[in-house]
């Protein structure tokens, strides 16, 4: 093995990589928020009795979950300009990641709402509460508790998935690493440092999620990491 490691390159360029990390978090945050909005609509559609609405939502979810994220991003990146929509790479990444996150979050939100036992709603109605009150004080609090951790987990998955957006030139962490590599050719060191940045990031985010869970739920819950991932 005749190779000397030069870790000084990525270490010196940490500020450069950190800028990419911030962009990563920004893109992921926007994508997750939009994805959540999409998911609320999607979940409602997936619980609807209207066959057309139900089928469209189901098709959306199944396509997202059964095709690779990279292909979805390429689809948008190469396709949108031909429709006259010339977004910059970061925006395209946000759109693509939103649509992808929305697909997974739809099922998460739906599961959270459907998990509320029928009797809960009947008990609330029997006390004389209106439908709106039942929603606000019984359905919503319970749904939020059930989806809190899965949504947090999905956000972290989005942060990891955002690395794929480097392939469409979004200015996030992995892309910055690739630029660094093309300048200095210290490929192994640069990408190793980068992957550890992601590792540290996800560990920190999981710790934060556990903290939020403990504070909001006021109880000690054992959070188990859930499969499957999103891609």
């Amino acid at each position, binding site marked *: *093995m005749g*190779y000397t490691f030069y870790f000084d390159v990525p270490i010196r360029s940490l500020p450069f990589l950190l800028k990419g990390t911030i962009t990563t978090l920004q893109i992921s945050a926007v994508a997750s928020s939009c994805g959540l909005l999409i998911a609320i609509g999607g979940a409602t559609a997936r619980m609807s009795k209207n066959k057309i609405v139900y089928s469209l939502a189901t098709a959306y979810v*199944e*396509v997202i*979950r*059964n*095709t*690779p*994220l*990279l*292909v*979805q991003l*390429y*689809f948008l990146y*190469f*396709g949108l300009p*031909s429709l006259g929509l010339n977004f910059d790479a970061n925006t395209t990444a946000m759109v693509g990641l939103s649509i992808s996150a929305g697909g997974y979050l739809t099922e998460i939100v739906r599961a959270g709402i459907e998990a509320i036992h029928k009797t809960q709603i009947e008990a609330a109605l029997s006390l004389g509460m209106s439908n709106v009150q039942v929603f606000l004080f019984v359905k919503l609090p319970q749904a939020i508790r059930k989806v809190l951790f899965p949504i947090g987990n999905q956000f*972290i998955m989005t942060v*990891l*998935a*955002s*690395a*794929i957006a*480097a*392939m469409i030139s979004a200015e996030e962490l*992995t892309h910055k690493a690739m630029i660094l590599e093309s300048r200095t050719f210290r*490929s*192994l060191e640069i*990408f*190793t440092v*980068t*992957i550890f940045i*992601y*590792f540290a990031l*996800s*560990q920190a985010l*999981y710790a934060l999620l556990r903290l939020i869970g403990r504070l909001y739920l006021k109880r000690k819950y054992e959070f188990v*990491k859930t*499969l*499957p*991932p999103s*891609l």
Partner: protein
Amino acid sequence: MVEWVSSFTAKDLIFLLKAMMITLQLFGSALGLGLIVGFFAGIMRTYPRSVVVRKLASFYIEFFRSTPIMLQVIVFYFGISLFGLELSRGVVAAAGLSLYAGAYLGEILRAGIESVDRRQWQAAASLGMSYPQIMRGVILPQVVKICIPPSINFLVSLAKATSLVSVLGYIELTRAGRLIVERTYQPFLVWGIVMAIYFLICYPITIGGRRLEMRFQRKEVR
């Protein structure tokens, strides 16, 4: 100026289908290797006699589940060249993906092993069985059945993950798609076909997994 744009022909479709075969091969190899790696990872993760072994396995699983797959493949690719091995990109790609698969399958195995009631361990131990005997005779046979539904779900993720080795320049379905799009400028057509092919690979697995889960639950209720 000559326009190097040509139209999408049947030749391109055949190219995509051939690339699909490469994707399937890649999927198969990564899965095969991943099962082996995952098996060891799962066993090590639950090895009762050594904290060090458990922590090593735990770190491996944690690491490959908390980092982007694309970077795993890239780091693996550059890392391998350190050892002076002249491996084809396909082998490197499959090996890289098998580390990812091994981590997830190992976690599935761990969950399966830990779900077996403690008392079965105690009963087997009081019969005088050793750890390997207990694993082989009592625990693993039960665990296999438990692990199948989540593993099927994971297969879909692995199939989608094969698209990421395109960053290495390895020609599988996604890379092929990109090459054709750059030549024909028909993004919706080409990517539409590529997505459809992936869908046709993944969706049956998804459905199969769901059916298995339902059959599984029905058996449990008795």
